[in-house]
């Protein structure tokens, strides 16, 4: 555990003095800690063919801004992009959004089961990790559970099994079960990050859980800065 804590501290040092990190910065952070993120490229202008050659189409383009907590709410997402000209048209549009610092162009991920994993500093309990079902709709469904952070892998598994919609994770209507081990690993990583006390809030929403593996599709992080 100490090893991951050390690594997280190093990574936070590397973020300079920014409080709110951009999506691709958070994904880079999480990738260093062993979580899967979509292949993509961060651009601040039109992209070249070389930049997106290796990416599997279709692609998704997302505005990178520290100002908004929800990109989709402000129309900051363009999906189903298949050609370079489509990508560049999207980039042009998105760069016009107020506060946009760039655009993250990624491979579109297949849909399976959306879960949310987050970390906060609770006034009663200090660092706390949250797990929930629902991704985009989590605030309506509120199928969420909390645990003290940092959390061990076995406890993360127990946490997962406490949600109401556990049958969705176990696989229903012919769908195979989701990779609960991968979800648990992600919960452990997020709990370690919030457990350092150096981060105010962190969110992976959604983590897309597949029958094998899980991928961070969107993430936010706010670092604790003095003052």
């Amino acid at each position, binding site marked *: 555990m100490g090893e991951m804590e050390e690594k997280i501290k190093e990574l936070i040092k590397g973020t300079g003095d920014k409080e*709110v990190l951009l999506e691709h910065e958070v994904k880079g952070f999480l990738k260093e800690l062993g979580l899967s993120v979509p292949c993509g490229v961060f651009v601040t202008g039109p992209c070249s063919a070389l930049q997106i050659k290796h990416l599997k189409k279709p692609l998704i383009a997302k505005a990178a801004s520290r100002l908004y*907590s929800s990109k989709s709410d402000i129309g900051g997402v363009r999906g189903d992009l298949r050609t370079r000209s489509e990508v560049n048209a999207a980039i042009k549009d998105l760069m016009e959004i107020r506060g946009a610092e760039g655009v993250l162009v990624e491979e579109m991920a297949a849909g399976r089961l959306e879960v*949310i994993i*987050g*970390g*906060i500093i*609770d*006034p*009663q*309990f*200090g660092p*706390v990790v*949250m797990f*929930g079902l629902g991704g985009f709709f*989590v*605030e309506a469904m*509120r199928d*969420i*559970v*909390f*645990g*003290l952070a940092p959390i061990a892998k076995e*406890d993360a598994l*127990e*946490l997962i099994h*406490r949600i109401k919609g556990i049958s969705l994770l176990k696989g229903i209507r012919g769908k195979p079960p989701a990779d609960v081990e991968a979800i648990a690993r992600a919960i452990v990583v997020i709990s370690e990050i919030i457990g350092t006390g150096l981060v*105010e*809030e*962190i*969110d992976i*929403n959604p983590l897309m859980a597949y029958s094998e593996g899980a991928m961070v599709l969107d993430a*936010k992080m*706010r670092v604790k800065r003095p003052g």
Partner: protein
Amino acid sequence: MLEFLFNPPGVCLIGASHSPEKLGGIILKNLLRYGPGRIYPVNPHYDELMGIKAYRDIKSLPETAALAVIVRPAPEVPGILSELAGKSKCAVIISAGFSEVGRTELQEEVRRAAKEAAIRVLGPNCMGVYYPANKLDTSFLPEGRPVRPRSGNIGVTSQSGSVMASIYEALEASDAGVSKTVHYGNAADIDEGELYEYFARDPETRVVVSYIESVGDGRRFIEKAAMLAREKPLLVLKAGKGSSGVKAAFSHTGRLAGSYEVFSSILKQFHIREAANFERFIDAAKALSYQEPKKRGGRKVLILTNGGGDGVLASDESMKEGLDVAGIPENKYLRLKSSFPPYYGVGNPFDCTAESKDEDYENVLRELKDDYDGFIIIALTVVSGISERIVGILKNLRKGTGKPVVFVTGKDEIGQKMEKMAEEAGVPSYPMPERAVRALKSILE
């Protein structure tokens, strides 16, 4: 050492009064019932109060006044504690007017004065301790208002005095008894965590129930609560469930994390029971005081009734509570079907109808006692075939299997008698099937 809180060789009352209308008079009257030690009332104007010797000041108190109960105005309390150095080891501060009204510096002064005087403090702004087996009552609740519960094995902690009074009434009405109760008020020194540590080791306490509004240090609370819950059942009633997501709209997590949701979830993480409301809190407290919970007790319950409708109510509630109203094993079904009249409902619930007799219950239980983890026995007394023999049958079931058994019976004279007998035999009784089911669940959890 909290022993001085519960078994002091002597108790002094700072702020004793001659009048049974004043707090200092009510407390004195309550304290005078204390068996194991002398009471030392302190009041500068009297040499005698309520028939015993009174002291004009703290200086003149002997060292045996190990527990001090203080009911003087708040600003006097720090000075009183300093004066009690060397005389008392523990103080219950009844006085109000500290951090609960914003006077945090005054409360800090109390804490410091107590530390310097080497006195442990309960409160301030509390009623202190009720320990019926020792006849110790430091509160300002007059005798009979409310009626106190008898001596028993439930340990109670409460952050609120008025809720503690309600808990007394409810436990007394349920015929459940308490080992020790502590209202800890502002918890300037002794807090619920320390009380949990005490109760974990207390042989007189089998189950601890706790009414909580807020905890200071959440991690410390959970650590102590989890440690207690590993030894004996701990049941929490948490008040203040209002939804309040943390102000930050930045992350989904921040918006979703209401302080009650986090609290409740973390209680589950550490296997600490939580009651949804006051009635369930009391029903579960009673059940856990009568019957030890079984670790991994199982979920299969048998409902044995002579009232079909009551059986259905019990069945519905069981399913709501996640219990398994499992059918009768196939190999036993035919045998049972043939041993009873055709209009008996052979199944689960098992309905002995209005023709039921005591022996029916005995026969069914003999056959099925090994197939279920818990039993809900409904014996309505509106039928003539039911008698007190039922209680003996229940007693044998408990003795023979050690499994949880709960009882529902009528409210008439025979029913009341059976209820009393059942509870004397260690089987808790409830007036309605749903409450009995929830009580059973709390034992099986």
